[in-house]
Structures are given as structure tokens and as C-alpha cells.
């Protein structure tokens, strides 16, 4: 129904804080764009600028091809789900959902029909007569979603909508949000600092750091080809192992494949690393071979994380199933050449 185009958007707060320093993102129609990044990197600020809740200091924001810089939140035809849900405490669930429609002068029977059908989709029918304080956290979250959906806006904005839920419910709601967004086909911007949420939800993933976009693209592309050490260490759990290279050498390496001249950091994912105590020759030529000392093992059921130390640096290996490894063991680990990532001294991929 609408595209969202940000061009060199900047935000300087009244106190002089530069929260967003020139961000350009083009979100196509019906896409779900996830903004992810560490705390304080400007995600909420960016989202609030799209909503019209913060002024845009420089650059432009266009919704559906129309620049909305000077248009207030009331006229932008967007809906937002807040982290604390921001339900109107003095209104029943029904009125919370109907409020936006009433303000826009929708006829009464249409309001009723829309509220009830939305409530049905979200399984809120039996809660319509309750006040927000009489709901559980998960139910409040659904009402907040319902309030956004019922209006049928051009764009959905979500600011960490699931961060107040427990892990299990969060997983459920994540799937549900994704399905809803797909079936409604509403362009959405979703802010989170949970990288798992970001990976699973996004059509377009935007990794932000200190007010700038570090990388944007499809989640798997970003996972497979992180553009910088920041992205590499932010996306993926546990994060990518990053080991410093000193003039082309790596401490603790038994064999090291050819290293690009400008590389100063070597990276590989914990799951791209194997542990083998014998049959070293079975490993393809040109693989990275490391001699590591085990510091600890974390079995989590289906897989185990082996925390190791190599040449004074820490790294993690992700092994399927259980392992018979004890702290203090000396191990050989291998990573295929094509699974290696190299980063320059500025942190950028080479």
C-alpha cells in the first residue's frame, strides 16, 4: 500500500545530541524492515521521525512517494505499537481499538464491524469489555496490535513491541506478527535489539550503529557476508569469532590459508568450525587449523558451545549434540577456507 523512503535523515536533539547522522533506507511496498542495533544507536529516534513524533533535522522522509517532513503524526496515516503498549487506561479494549476510527469519522456500524473482525483475528473477542489493567502482558500486547491493525494504515511502526514478554510468548508473537504483516500486506518498520527477532522477521534488515547504517540487506546476506566487524559480532548468537592478524600471521594457527594483504582481523562463525581430534587430513586443503585450549563447555541440549582460547584470544565453537570435552583439553579445530571472513584495520570487510 505504501513505500517508505528515507534520504540522508539526520536528527539533532535540542541538547545537541546527534542521534541519527544521515540514514538512507528505501523500503518497498509490503516489506517488513527491521532496524536493529545496540542501545542508544538511534533506532527509536529514526522510527519516531517516520511517525512524525520527532522533527526531522535534515534529509527527507517520504511515505507513499510524498514527503511528510512537515506533516504531523495525525495526518500521516501510520499506526504505531509502543514498547509499553500505550493503551488508554480509562477506555475498554473495544474503545481503545475504536478510538482511531472514531477520530477519523468512520461510521458507527463500520467501526463495530472492523473492531470485531480484528478482535476475532487476534482472539481478543472475550476481552473487548475489559480495561487494560485487567489484562495480562501478552493480552495487552495483542490489544496494542489490534489497535494498530484495525485502522488499516499505510505503515505499521513497531518499537520493541515484544520486549516486555517472556521468551516463549515472544517466540509465538514473533511468528504471529510476521504472519499478520504478510497477510495484511502493510509496509512495516520494526525496531528491536534482539538479533534473533531481527533475523526471523526481516525482509530487509538494517543494522545500525551510533546513528549510522552499518549494513542493510536481506538477513541471510548480512549473516553470510557481514560488512564490518561490528555487524559480524552483532548478528548471530553466539557471535562470529574475531581473531586479530599480526602482519598476516595468526597466533595459535597451525595452518593459515592465504590472507588478503590489507586484512587485520579474521572471522568465522562458531558453527563453521569443527573439532576433530584425529583424521586431520580429511579436512579440505587450505582450511584454517587452530590449536586451542578449552576453557569451558556449555551443553544446551541439541548442541554444545565449546569456549576456547587461542593465542590469548577467546573463541567459541558450536558442536551438534553432546561432546566429551573437559576444560583444559587441547584441541585442533578447523574452518573451511570459504567460511572465513577478513576485515581490514578500519573494521570493513575485505
Amino acid at each position, binding site marked *: 500500500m505504501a513505500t517508505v523512503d528515507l534520504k540522508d535523515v539526520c536528527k539533532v536533539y535540542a541538547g545537541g545530541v546527534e542521534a541519527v547522522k544521515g540514514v538512507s533506507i528505501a523500503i518497498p511496498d509490503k516489506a517488513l524492515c527491521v532496524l536493529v542495533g545496540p542501545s542508544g544507536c538511534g533506532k527509536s529516534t529514526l522510527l519516531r521521525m517516520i511517525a512524525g513524533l520527532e522533527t526531522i533535522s535534515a534529509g527527507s522522509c517520504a511515505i507513499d512517494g510524498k514527503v511528510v517532513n512537515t506533516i504531523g503524526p495525525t495526518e500521516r496515516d*501510520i499506526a504505531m505499537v509502543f514498547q509499553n503498549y*500505550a493503551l488508554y487506561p*480509562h477506555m475498554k479494549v473495544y474503545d481503545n481499538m475504536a478510538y482511531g476510527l472514531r477520530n477519523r469519522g468512520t461510521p458507527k456500524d463500520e467501526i463495530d464491524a472492523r473492531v470485531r473482525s480484528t478482535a476475532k483475528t487476534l482472539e481478543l473477542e472475550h476481552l473487548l469489555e475489559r480495561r487494560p489493567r485487567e489484562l495480562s502482558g501478552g493480552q495487552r500486547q495483542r490489544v496494542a496490535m489490534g489497535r494498530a491493525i484495525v485502522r488499516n494504515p499505510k505503515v505499521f511502526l513497531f518499537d520493541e513491541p515484544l520486549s516486555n514478554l517472556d521468551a516463549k510468548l515472544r517466540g509465538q508473537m514473533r511468528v504471529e506478527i510476521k504472519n499478520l504483516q504478510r497477510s495484511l500486506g502493510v509496509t512495516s518498520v520494526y525496531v528491536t535489539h534482539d538479533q534473533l527477532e531481527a533475523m526471523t522477521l526481516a525482509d530487509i534488515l538494517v543494522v545500525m550503529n551510533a546513528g549510522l547504517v552499518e549494513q542493510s540487506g536481506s538477513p541471510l546476506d548480512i549473516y553470510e557476508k557481514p560488512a564490518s566487524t561490528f555487524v559480524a559480532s552483532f548478528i548471530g548468537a553466539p557471535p562470529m569469532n574475531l581473531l586479530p592478524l599480526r602482519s598476516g600471521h595468526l597466533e595459535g594457527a597451525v595452518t593459515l590459508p592465504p590472507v588478503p594483504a590489507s586484512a587485520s582481523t579474521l572471522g568465522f562463525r562458531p558453527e563453521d568450525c569443527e573439532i576433530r581430534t584425529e583424521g586431520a587430513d580429511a579436512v579440505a586443503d587450505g582450511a584454517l587449523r587452530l590449536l586451542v585450549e578449552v576453557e569451558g563447555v556449555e551443553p544446551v541440549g541439541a548442541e554444545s558451545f565449546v569456549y576456547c582460547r587461542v593465542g590469548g584470544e577467546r573463541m567459541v565453537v558450536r558442536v551438534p549434540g553432546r561432546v566429551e570435552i573437559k576444560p583444559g583439553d587441547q584441541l585442533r579445530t578447523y574452518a573451511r577456507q570459504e567460511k572465513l571472513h577478513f576485515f581490514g584495520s578500519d573494521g570493513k570487510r575485505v
Partner: protein
Amino acid sequence: MSPRVVFPNTFLPYLLVAPQLAITLVFFYWPASQALYQSMLREDPFGLSSRFVWFANFRKVLSDPNYLNSIEVTMVFSTATAAVALSTALLLAVMADKVVRSRAIYRTLMIWPYAVAPAIAGMLWLFLFNPSIGSLAYGMRWLGINWDPLLDGRQAMVLVVAAAAWKQISYNFLFFVAGLQAIPKSLIEAAAIDGAGETKRFWTIVFPLLAPTTFFLLVINTVYAFFDTFGIIHAVTGGGPGKATETLVYKVYNDGFVNLILGDSAAQSVILMVIVIALTAIQFRYVERKVHYG
């Protein structure tokens, strides 16, 4: 609500509240019971003896047209005072909420009138609006208004209401500012996104959420108008002209200390006491049930 602390010891709690109980008994219950007793006595014209007359004083007071007039005056006066004080304070608080720069100074200035003693406040208004020397009265006459609160009962009422409300505005303002700050900003933002303009947001979100504060202030203001405005009325109009601004409290004073009809005056104060107890009871009931959203 946090769970109650339970003292296993039965004696200690009483000991701890004893000073408070003693003060309440000596300074509240004892005078109150004296008033109750006095309200059933009638003195002879020379004040030499008194006899017990049961409820005769009440019957006399309640059938006295002057007293009924006083009730009416009090109703008009307290409703008007509370309404003016509340609405002005709310307006100022909403505007203060929008002030970005030197907010603190603005708020502090708004609070000052509260520190002015009632009689002084009354004098202030009296001087400003005195028909012969008041500067504002001069202005009003210049505007063509026939301003003479010393003769016109209605104008006198306007004057005392203005003075009484002026005094209470700062207090209300403080509470409204705090109440406004307690409303989460995200609610206002959500309402804006939901398509509500500023006026609509105020009436559908802000005002309902301020209801607990407003109701609390309504009771406080009514009680204030009933009981604490004696100084202002005394200074500004002295209950006149005629009995146009003679409120219940003022009449208690007039009958008791000026006219020395002690029995009637005591009966009136007992009636007042009943009124204040009723008001407080309503407040507790209503505040706890209706206007809390949690």
C-alpha cells in the same frame, strides 16, 4: 498494595499511636463534643444561665430564613469558587506544560499566591476593586461598568469569589502540573497517531486521566470555600451588602461572636461539621472506586 505489617505485640502499637490519639482527642473530639453540647443549650438574654433544650436550636436555625439564605449563598459561593479556581488552574497548568524554556521559574511564580495569607489576599482585592480608590475599579468604571460592590450584592459576590479563587489557584495548579506530568507521554503520542487533534486529545485522554486529581481538588476546593474563606470574606465584604456574601462559616462567627447567640452558633457549627464529614466520606468512596484506572 504492599502487604500489611502485623505487630504481634498488642500493647506497643497503642503506645506508639498514643500521642496522636491524645492530640486528636484533646484538640478535636473534645471541642467537637463541646460544640455538640453547646448546640443543645439556650442562654438567657443576659448570659447568666443556660438550659438544656435538646434540638430546639437546630429547629430554630433550620427554619430561619437568614440561615436558608446563608446556605444558598454558600452553595453559590463555593460552587463558583471551586469552578473558577479549578478551571483557571487547569488552563494555566496545561499552558505551563507547554512552556519549554525557564519552566521552573514560571512554575515557582505561579505558586507564590498560595503563600499569601487569606486576609491579606482579601485586602489586596479590596484595594484593587474599592469603588473609590481601587485602580481596577477605576478601570471598570471607565469601561462603563457601574462598579460598586459595597452596594451591589452580586458584584460583592463576584469580588469575594475572585479573591477566594485567586488564592486557591496556585494550590490547584501544583496538583494539576503533577497530574499532567504523571500522564505517560506515549499515550498522548498514541492518540496523536490515532488521529486526535490537540483539543480532542485533551478532552478524550488528558482530561479523563486527570479525573482523580480533579476530583480530589474539587473536594479540597469545596471544603476550602466552605471553611477557609472566612478571612477573605471578612476583609472584603464583611458578609455584606445586606447578607449577600454571608456564608455559613461567616454566619457562625456573626451569630456567635458578634450577636452572642451561642446556642444557635454552636448548632450551626455542628451542621457544618456534618457537611464536612459527608463531603469527606463522599470523597473517599468516590475516589477509591470510580476515578482510579490503575
